[in-house]
């Protein structure tokens, strides 16, 4: 009877076929048409593990290690594997609160329950020691080695600079950097970032669902190895740097010393400074904020490169050179000094008492203001220059050829131009062509709008000691190998003053250190030092004490510029500090212990501040 229903087998078979066909179509779409599943599958099992190379080391000019790496550890967490963790113990070891623990694990879980996230970064080796013994009590946590920058001596913080995690703005423009990578943020760490960082490697591992390692992907065929960063050989003399920082303690200002024959920076001191070890690892952020917020000391401000001072009387040697070059000055030129240079409206540029008239050599030794006002005026007003403006431009170009008013291109970031005002500036200030040499006469004695950085002052001393040329100042003399010199720094920059005009200025600067000269008190037995004092007027407080110098007079080995803010005459602080530096560098030890002691103990930090109020 049920034969009647035999045709129903076609319905049943038809249904089987429909379902089978539906599944085949579905399979076709997910296996052949869609490709997102392949990506998801790789995402599931492949882990790209970055191999971080050690950053390059930095040595001083005698091969002393200055900057190195120390092992540090990032504590990683895989939330899915966190089970029966001794939370109290972990919190105690990391010095965090229980709620921090919960928050961090939750944050990691939101990123991915199966992948590692940083739980605590840059744990020092000592702290890791305590942690390591107890790691078995923290399932789901593991440690990833990283490195921390360390500094052998707490010196030259501004020069070395610091590293930090690459921010989103860097990652966006430079594909090398990924989140969590370190990058040089300031100083040499920044300018030599590409050499120091080395090259990251990548290991591709296969993991299971619990993120357990299951070996390398395709036998490591696609792995790349990491290359250690390149070491840098600095021209810095670590002892001299440390000594200079000691001398500058309790003072604001800067010391820059250059080897004239090469342009190598022997030391570059900015005071106040800080211990570079403060801006390392976990403590960097808090310490940086503290340093940044110190508006009185401004310890992050790199005065050596960024502070622009009027050079005061040290600038007279520049006028002496430019005047000779222009042809308005000879060694025999004498000017009478009536105690000042009259400005015409009853005012005058004052001068101190000395015998008169002075010749060129004596004018530097005794630092006569009247003499240099006249020299400056004769340069600007020299005919056939058609106008004040034309005369000024001649002067300005020659001054700028001595390294002023522009950057050198030194290998430490942050260098400033300084300021040698343009004619246009005076046009704007006085009206077009409505200014005369008298209006800008203070430039002649290094006052007024003129601004010079300590680095530029040191370079001037080096240039004079070389009798007319300089090399771009630089802090790194070799990259990787000791003889691998940076070619840019081998280019000799010849200034616009002919060599024949230098000897008289050198002799005069030597006289400064002899009986009757302004630097006499700072002379060093056995070393022929040439120097020039300066006292820069400072609208905010007591005058800045300035000194430029080099030694020995012939075959010079060191050129030094010192600026001590609010310290008064150049002879009181800047000159003794500069000659102590020279003595230290050339003799490797300082005999004038009394001078050294009085310099070290001199505390001038409240001088500027009090007058500010």
């Amino acid at each position, binding site marked *: 009877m049920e034969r009647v229903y035999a045709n129903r087998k076609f319905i049943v078979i038809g249904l089987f076929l429909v379902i*089978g066909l539906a*599944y*085949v179509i579905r399979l076709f779409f997910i*296996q052949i048409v869609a490709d997102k599943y392949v990506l998801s*599958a790789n995402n599931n*099992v492949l882990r790209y593990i970055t191999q971080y190379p050690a950053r390059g080391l930095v040595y001083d000019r005698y091969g002393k290690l200055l900057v190195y790496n120390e092992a540090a550890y990032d504590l990683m967490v895989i939330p899915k594997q966190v089970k029966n963790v001794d939370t109290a113990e972990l919190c105690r070891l990391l010095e965090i609160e229980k709620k921090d623990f919960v928050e961090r694990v939750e944050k990691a879980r939101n990123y991915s329950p199966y992948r590692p996230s940083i739980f605590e970064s840059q744990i020092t080796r000592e702290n890791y020691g305590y942690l390591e013994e107890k790691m078995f009590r923290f399932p789901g946590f593991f440690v990833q080695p990283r490195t921390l920058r360390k500094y052998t001596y707490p010196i030259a913080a501004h020069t070395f600079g610091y590293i930090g995690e690459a921010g989103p703005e860097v990652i966006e423009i430079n594909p090398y950097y990924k989140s969590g990578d370190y990058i040089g943020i300031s100083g040499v760490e920044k300018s030599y970032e590409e050499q120091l960082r080395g090259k990251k490697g990548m290991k591709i591992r296969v993991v299971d669902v619990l993120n357990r390692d299951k070996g390398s992907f395709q036998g490591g065929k696609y792995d790349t190895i990491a290359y250690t960063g390149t070491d840098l050989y600095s021209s810095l003399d670590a002892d001299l740097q440390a000594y200079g920082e000691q001398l500058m303690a309790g003072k604001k200002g800067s010391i820059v010393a250059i080897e004239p024959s090469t342009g190598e920076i022997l030391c570059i001191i900015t005071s106040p400074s800080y211990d570079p070890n403060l801006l390392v690892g976990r403590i960097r952020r808090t310490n940086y904020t503290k340093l940044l917020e110190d508006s009185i000391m401004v310890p992050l401000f790199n005065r050596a490169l960024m502070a622009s001072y009027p050079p005061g009387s040290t600038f007279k040697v520049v006028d002496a050179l430019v005047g000779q070059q222009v042809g308005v000055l000879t060694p025999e030129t004498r000017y009478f000094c009536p105690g000042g240079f009259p400005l015409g409206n009853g005012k005058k540029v004052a001068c101190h008492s000395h015998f008169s008239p002075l010749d060129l050599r004596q004018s530097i030794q005794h630092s006569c203001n009247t003499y240099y006002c006249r020299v400056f005026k004769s340069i600007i007003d020299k005919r056939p220059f058609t106008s004040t403006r034309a005369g000024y431009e001649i002067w300005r170009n020659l001054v700028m050829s001595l390294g002023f008013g522009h950057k050198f291109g030194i290998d430490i970031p942050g260098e400033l131009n300084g300021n040698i005002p343009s004619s246009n500036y005076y046009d704007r200030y006085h009206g077009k062509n409505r200014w005369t040499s008298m209006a800008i006469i203070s430039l002649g004695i290094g006052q007024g709008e003129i601004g010079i950085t300590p680095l530029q002052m040191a370079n001037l001393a080096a240039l004079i000691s070389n009798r007319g040329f300089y090399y771009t100042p630089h802090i790194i003399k070799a990259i990787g190998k000791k003889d691998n010199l940076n070619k840019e720094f081998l280019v000799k920059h010849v200034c616009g003053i002919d060599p024949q005009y230098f000897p008289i200025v050198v002799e005069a600067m030597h006289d400064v250190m002899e009986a009757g000269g302004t630097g006499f008190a700072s002379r060093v037995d056995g070393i022929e030092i040439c120097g020039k004092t300066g006292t820069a007027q400072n609208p905010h407080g007591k005058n800045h004490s300035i000194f430029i110098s080099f030694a020995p007079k012939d075959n010079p080995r060191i050129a030094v510029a010192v600026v001590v803010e609010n310290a008064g005459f150049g002879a009181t602080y800047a000159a003794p500090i500069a000659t102590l530096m020279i003595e230290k560098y050339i003799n490797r030890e300082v005999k004038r212990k009394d001078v050294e002691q009085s310099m070290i103990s001199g505390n001038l930090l409240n001088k500027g501040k009090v007058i500010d109020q």
Partner: protein
Amino acid sequence: MRERHSVFEHIDWWLVIIFLLLVVMGWLNIYAAVYDENHGSIVDMHVKYGKQMAWILAGLFLGLIVLLIDGKFFSQFAYLIYIFCILLLIAVIFTGKEISGSKSWFQFAGIALQPGEFAKMGTALALAKFLSKNETDIRKRKELFVAICLILFPSVLIFLEHDTGSAIVFFSFIFVLYRAGLSEKLVIGFVLVPLLAVLSLLINKFIILGFLFIIALFFFLYSKRKIRNIILISLVYLGSAGFVFSVDYAVNHILEPHQRVRVNVLIGKEIDLKGAGYNVNQSLIAIGSGGAWGKGFLKGTQTKYNFVPEQSTDFIFCTVGEEWGFAGSFVVVGLFIALLIRIILVAERQRSRFSRFYGYGVASIIFFHFMINIGMTLSLIPVIGIPLPFFSYGGSSLWAFTLLLFIFIRQDSYRYELL
């Protein structure tokens, strides 16, 4: 000797070959799913493929025994086997061992057995026996009621053991009833009811009631306006409305939270890749990443490294999809469809009504398992944990399906003896 000779002469080799192919492919995929470089031996009894190998050999032995049993045996003892299965199901509720949420396991001599798997076979036998009686007419309400009771009784018992997946499989016997002459309207209703259930979860209940009202009105206008019809339409409408509300209530108040989430993920109301949707998503990733030709035997990463859950049991098809690609998946789906069609064709050639209805029962059960299991891995059906016949790891399931199929093969070979 004469009888045994005829058994092997008349068995349907197509069914045997497809069966053997599925079992061997299943074993290879179980091997791949739990493959570990550190375990070399394929007969290691501590790993799943070693155990499965033992179960396959024992299953073949069972099948051989079935072929040697007298042809009248299963027909004569159908009810007894059914009652024995029911007793086991009742016993397991009180004495059974709970394994992963289901209290449906007997454990003795280190082997865990699920009576629920064998109850499908018992029910197929009993239902075939009942329908094969000359006086049975399924169109009569009384006899339909008896048939439905035969089906639902073990299903409810299995449901009480929290093995929902296996309980649902019993609904597949609708095909047997259909073949026996069940009214098409009732079968269509059987299809429409789940559809209405899904819709009631997806769409606002009152909108559904509105639509149902319009449909009821339509029937009312186009039917003869007799009191009887009006009452009938009103009753059906009220019944549907009650159904819509009770489905909603059941899902939101009776189902366990994890089951509710699963239902919602499947019908697309929730996307939860870390929770209930995780399994389905990982299953799709494993199958989808296989591409056209697959990653190759033992080269699958998703299944080997446990991204796919239950990869040797309920999600064994993921290994097929990942390692053998579209080509391999196509072959497996094709083999199942071929097996099912072959069973129907063989059933239709039976002279014995018992054998024919039993054949339909076998096809129905295998089809439901196939449809739900592979549909689940392809994210077309909710995650319901039932094994893929002959493929999935597990002794109970493999033995039960082997017995189920070999009894049918035995019945088929017996057809010449009925002359």
